[in-house]
């Protein structure tokens, strides 16, 4: 997640990372990590063990994914995936609930 500044809201954080900020902490699937009082990006990144890297010349930060469980998946509950389709329309993975889905990653490289 690319950030121009670190003063972002809990909602912006959730949209960018998939971690929802609730009273009990930052939650994804069936996993919750306590955050303490209120939302603060630096403290939340520390708790979720997310890398926060600054490029001084460009004036931006990049926030990496969490490393709380030491595995790519902390939970087997599928995170919501929203990506544009080839025509630019946002597609929500959850719109296919009730069917089996195979997400196939490919690349022209």
């Amino acid at each position, binding site marked *: 997640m690319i950030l121009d500044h670190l003063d972002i809201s809990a909602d912006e954080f959730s949209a960018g990372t998939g971690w929802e900020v609730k009273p009990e902490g930052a939650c994804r699937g069936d996993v919750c990590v306590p955050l303490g009082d209120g939302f603060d990006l630096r403290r939340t990144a520390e708790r979720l063990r997310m890398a926060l890297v600054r490029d001084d010349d460009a004036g931006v930060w990049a926030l990496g994914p969490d490393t709380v469980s030491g*595995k790519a998946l902390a939970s*087997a509950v599928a995170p919501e995936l929203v990506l544009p389709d080839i025509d630019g329309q946002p597609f929500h993975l959850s719109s296919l609930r009730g069917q*089996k889905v195979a997400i196939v990653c*490919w690349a*022209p*490289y």
Partner: protein
Amino acid sequence: MDLPGWQVLRTELKPLGLEIVTVGLEMGGPAVLRPYIADAGAQHPSLVDESHVMDSLFGVTNIPEAIWIDEDGMIVRVRDVAVPPPVMRPNADGEPELYGLGGRYGFSVDAAANRLRDWAAKGAGSEFALSPERVIERSQPRPMEVSLAAAHFELAQHLWKAEGFSDATLRHFAEAHVLQPDNITYKRQAYSQYSVARLGRDEGNRFRQSPEAGEAWPFVSDFTADSARIRDEREAQKRET
């Protein structure tokens, strides 16, 4: 390319309640992906992942790779090497020929398709549909270096869009490649777009991902060297088992 094979398999499995969603990982965006999708006549959702969120969200590190999600939204398989059966296509002389990765480079012709057929038929009873614990265990390791690699890779893409392959862009790609050397998508994305930049916007140049003899190369590795290393590791594993 595998998209024609996926469309054929989708036609077969959709009536059994299984949908295929392809995700193209490419920082050049839809313009680069569209010809392949159109050529396959894809009727399934064809998504565009410009910033490799599949790597961050699901731990994807190579292509082709599939993630299976069941009717209730539970992940039941990750890191499935996803090569569909090849399709028949006319070659340059008009003769029918097998087209696709299946059966080439050591990939099975139909193992990935047969795993999906098994899951479509048996659901949770399929040996390939894993429990939540096994799914988490099978997902890629994620030490802090992987999060740092993702952050540097995202900075590299952000800068590439603004200024092309500047020194800063190359520095962030290099950081990502050193921090997570096993992430082949981070490497081949950089190599392929760099080759388009150095050789010209010809589709074939995307796949020339190594320097010519004596040519300067800005990355710590290249596709030829990476492939040789992976081959050596596989051979070593075979000798040990």
